């Protein structure tokens, strides 16, 4: 365990690097994964993010922060970007951009919302929508390191078609190495759906587990109202605040 206040990662000079998009994968109708060629990539920890800077021809600059989706062990750095239709940055990153395009990034940054295999488990990962991205980096890292840490991943999504990385999650869960993936679909369900069909609440978290008595490391990522509701429910179930790591994202201009 890290000493409170000690950096989990060494300080990284915050330089802007020009990166090249080497692959684009459509994940859902609204989200794309961008695999990047990053010169002199210093490596990252699952859960960290990158700041992205786009500069328009007229000099206008827009910056956004995106979670890294890839595991540290993966060959390429990948971001998954959800398109916000009236946003400034995401319609380009998750829409117009093509392979070979370049933009600037700095990072990786962040150390609070991170997990490394040596930190151990059990883990409870709770994702709201594209809040799954940094948690996916943890799940991929866990698999790459054959960590075996007991892990519950609870994914809340409006509908099944909006769930990122569906096939990969199914594959990872089928390995039966301690990863269990549970879905709740809040808006529409496929015919015959037998899973959860409501917003994440305390009874759902209690059923999914692990119980607070097992002192799991909990990571919650999603839109702010989702994170607040889940964090409150976790506290009501007796999870210690210091075990609950939260990360919020919101429509800050997209």
């Amino acid at each position, binding site marked *: 365990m*890290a*000493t*409170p*206040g*000690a*950096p*989990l*990662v060494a*300080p*990284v*000079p*915050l330089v802007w690097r020009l990166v090249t998009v080497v692959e684009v994968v459509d994940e859902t109708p609204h989200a794309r994964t961008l695999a990047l060629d990053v010169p002199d990539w210093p490596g990252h920890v699952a859960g960290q*993010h990158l*700041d992205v800077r786009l500069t328009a021809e007229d000099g206008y600059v827009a910056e956004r*922060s995106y979670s890294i989706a890839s595991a540290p062990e993966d060959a390429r750095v990948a971001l998954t970007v959800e398109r916000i239709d009236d946003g400034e940055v995401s319609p380009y990153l998750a829409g117009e951009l093509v392979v070979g395009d370049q933009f600037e990034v*700095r*990072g990786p*940054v*962040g*150390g*609070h*919302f*991170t997990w490394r295999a040596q930190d151990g488990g059990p883990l409870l990962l709770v994702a709201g929508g594209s809040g799954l991205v940094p948690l996916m980096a943890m799940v991929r890292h866990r698999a790459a390191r054959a960590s075996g840490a007991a892990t519950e991943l609870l994914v809340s999504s409006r509908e099944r078609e909006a769930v990122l990385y569906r096939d990969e999650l199914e594959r990872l869960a089928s390995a039966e190495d301690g990863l269990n993936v549970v879905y709740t679909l809040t808006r529409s369900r496929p015919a015959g759906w037998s899973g959860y069909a409501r917003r994440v609440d305390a009874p759902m978290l209690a059923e999914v587990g692990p119980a607070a008595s097992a002192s799991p490391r909990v990571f919650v990522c999603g*839109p*702010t*109202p989702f994170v*607040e509701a889940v964090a409150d429910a976790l506290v009501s179930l007796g999870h210690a*605040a210091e075990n609950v*790591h*939260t*990360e*919020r*994202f*919101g*429509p*800050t201009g997209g």
Partner: protein
Amino acid sequence: MEEERGAAARDATVLDGNAIAALLGEIFGGSEMTSATRGCGSCGQSHPIGEHRLYRGAGLVLRCPGCGDVALVVVERGGEAVREVQLLGRWQVAVG
């Protein structure tokens, strides 16, 4: 209901200290600050910077998740030529 939606919309614009990891790194000379803890001078609780609430407006304000007390104010003046930073509470900054 209208009021609830309004509150939800406002909540949705509130992020947390994780979102300014890079900015904090600049201010603190490259240190990773989201895992650093801050002792609040108002409520006495200690929380990681990453758990503090972030409000963006003309500048940005970071607030204690326990009581809402101001932890950090950053205002950029004259473009980005000058950055005005106000820190409150006890920030535990790792050295070395």
